[in-house]
């Protein structure tokens, strides 16, 4: 008998750690415009390749090229740019507000603005997102008032959620934004259930599920794919692969599979990867997937390939686990800059107008902030009441809660 080799334990490690030179040479980036655009009723079997490529529209010169280009007007693109700028400015102000003690916690989108802003514009009224904490672009691009977002972040007297929820875990039925959960992945299969309901009722609405790269490891991811696949639910399953899950790089969740999109293949669900820093590409791919859903062709999985430039949250310091300059080396660039350059190439934008727009956006954010702060911040000024704490546990307050509210003296 051959002497057997001993086993050894394998733990995936990122290419680089703090102190090392950032290195993305293993990330294969296909040329913009090089990935074909199948028709929406394609047999999923015939587009398995799309799970291993990246659909891109904007090239290095800032031009929109290839079969996924051409869907958006100048106006729509300018609007998209402003949404991303607004989200970035909003993030900056709220980060600062958190540092000033005006709230307990904040989570920013830096580098990922295109994903949620572009996706939102591909939806119809009545469609519903089941977002994570990093898709505030769905609200901003959907026209939700910034001041209400701030009221929520501040848990102030006008907080639509009455101080009950952690900052950034917004909720707005009207704006197609399902109440965000603090628990990862739980809402992915809920989105499928919502989509099943639309099909059961014979309606035309579709759902969009959202999850991070790290959270695809959660078991509810599987529940969602199983149900979506079995019932051909009209849902778009988004994975935002921003390379990191707090301190763990995407290799920990991805394991031996080439990409996160590949997870869809075992379910017969068409899976596309898209340049998550390319507003045009995201919009085009989202449109495609949403159309599939609405035409009763079933679920689509989209992996948005992007990069988390900032810290995970205000409680995190990424310099402990990755090189400080890693984001500069990220090969897909910055989504705001790329759309800005495209608009300049298109000759509908300029450096000056961009500067001016930046100032305008900042003004808007600041005045919303002033307005919100009139109604209080977490530890100062107006706030939700203790009574609010006891409300909405149930539609009707049962006797034991009434007793407790009384004990609390409110």
């Amino acid at each position, binding site marked *: 008998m051959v002497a057997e080799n001993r086993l050894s334990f394998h733990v995936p490690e990122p290419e680089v750690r703090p102190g090392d030179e950032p290195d993305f040479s293993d990330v294969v980036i296909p040329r913009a415009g090089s990935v074909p655009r199948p028709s929406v009723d394609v047999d999923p079997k015939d587009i398995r390749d799309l799970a291993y490529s990246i659909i891109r529209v904007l090239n290095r010169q800032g031009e929109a090229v290839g079969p996924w280009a051409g869907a958006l007007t100048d106006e729509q693109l300018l609007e998209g740019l402003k949404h991303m700028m607004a989200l970035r400015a909003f993030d900056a102000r709220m980060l600062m507000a958190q540092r000033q003690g005006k709230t307990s916690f904040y989570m920013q989108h830096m580098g990922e603005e295109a994903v949620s802003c572009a996706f939102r514009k591909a939806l119809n009224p009545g469609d519903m997102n089941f977002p994570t904490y990093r898709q505030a672009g769905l609200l901003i691009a959907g026209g939700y008032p910034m001041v209400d977002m701030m009221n929520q972040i501040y848990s102030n007297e006008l907080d639509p959620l009455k101080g009950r*929820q952690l900052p950034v875990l917004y909720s707005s039925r009207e704006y197609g934004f399902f109440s965000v*959960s603090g628990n990862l992945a739980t809402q992915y*299969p809920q989105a499928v*259930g919502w989509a099943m309901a639309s099909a*059961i009722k014979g309606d035309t609405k579709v759902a969009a599920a959202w999850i991070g790269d790290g959270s695809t490891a959660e078991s509810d991811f599987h529940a*969602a794919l199983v*149900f979506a696949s079995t019932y051909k639910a009209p849902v778009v399953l988004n994975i935002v692969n921003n390379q990191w899950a707090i301190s763990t790089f995407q290799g920990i969740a991805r394991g031996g599979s080439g990409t996160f999109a590949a997870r869809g293949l075992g379910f017969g669900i068409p899976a596309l990867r898209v340049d998550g820093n390319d507003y045009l590409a995201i919009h085009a791919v989202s449109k495609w997937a949403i159309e599939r859903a609405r035409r009763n062709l079933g679920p689509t999985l989209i992996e948005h390939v992007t990069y988390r430039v900032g810290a995970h949250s205000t409680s995190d310091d990424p310099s402990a686990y990755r090189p400080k300059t890693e984001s500069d080396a990220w090969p897909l660039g910055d989504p705001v800059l790329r759309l800005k350059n495209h608009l300049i190439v298109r000759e509908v934008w300029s450096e000056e107008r961009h500067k001016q727009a930046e100032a305008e956006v900042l003004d808007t954010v600041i005045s919303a902030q002033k307005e919100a702060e009139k109604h209080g911040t977490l530890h100062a000024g107006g706030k939700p009441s203790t009574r609010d704490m006891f409300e909405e546990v*149930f539609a009707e307050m049962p006797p034991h809660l009434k007793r407790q509210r009384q004990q609390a003296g409110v």
Partner: protein
Amino acid sequence: MPRMTMIEAIRDAMDVAMGRDDNVVVFGEDAGYFGGVFRCTQGLQQKYGSSRCFDTPINESGIIAAAIGMASYGLRPCVEIQFADYMYPAYDQIVSEAARIRYRSNGEFTCPIVIRMPTGGGIFGGQTHSQSPEALFTHVSGLKTVVPSNPYDAKGLLIAAIDDPDPVIFLEPKRLYNGPFNGHHDRPVTPWSKHELGEVPQGTFKVPLGSAAVRREGSDVTILAYGTMVYVAEAAADEAAVEADVIDLRTLLPLDLDTIVTSVRKTGRCVIVHEATLTSGFGAELAALVQEHCFYHLEAPAIRVAGWDTPYPHAQEWDYFPGPARVSHAIREVMEA
């Protein structure tokens, strides 16, 4: 009034609810074509079509998550978990999601779902077909927990649960499906067709959530029970030859505290029985409340009779099950205290 088994009554409740309201949908493992391993959903797919009653993949978390998503859309899912012992994979969806969606969205999104599951022992089902996990639900703010003990209540409570705007855990004591088992496993069980609580009104009728039923009245001692233990309590009271208030709680949360307190203040003695393991069982909450609210009326401590603090065994079914002998022993203990 027609006579029904508990299975028929539960099926009838869903039938009535589905007939009245297109938004009521029913699903679960084997719950569609086959009609459920206990046959509670039999015929519903045939009658309402497979968009209203259907089979699911074996994923309890997915079942509850789908129900939550549907409820937020506007449907009223009434879903089946095959055995309460198999609800654990769905526990996160129930606790972290269903129970809190109304609260965290300030009522913008709500979760009117019913989660039916067969509960309790007495069928030689071993560790994974016998559990009584009610206390794992009563500890969770935002859930209602119901345990019917007879066909009449089962139908009335289930319709009330389906109509309820919030998530309801509906635990069906499987040993009662076919008759009021009282723990005397060596004696025949009266079928529901010969029991007055097997008489079930037709069409819509409700038993409100949150109200207990006094099954029999007596001044010696109060026995608090629910599910199968109601009949065990009655048998035990007979065997201990006491006049007991036997209270069938029916709903554990919201709890009908008034009925409990009124009775214990009257009798001054209290025995609490349930099948679930003793420690941190719902009986602990009941004992805590009883001593809190009736302290000055109590002649003896409130005593709990419950499943032992072991996993539910197979061969030792009747050693584990808190039958009439153990309950009547406890009754005598509080009577003599």
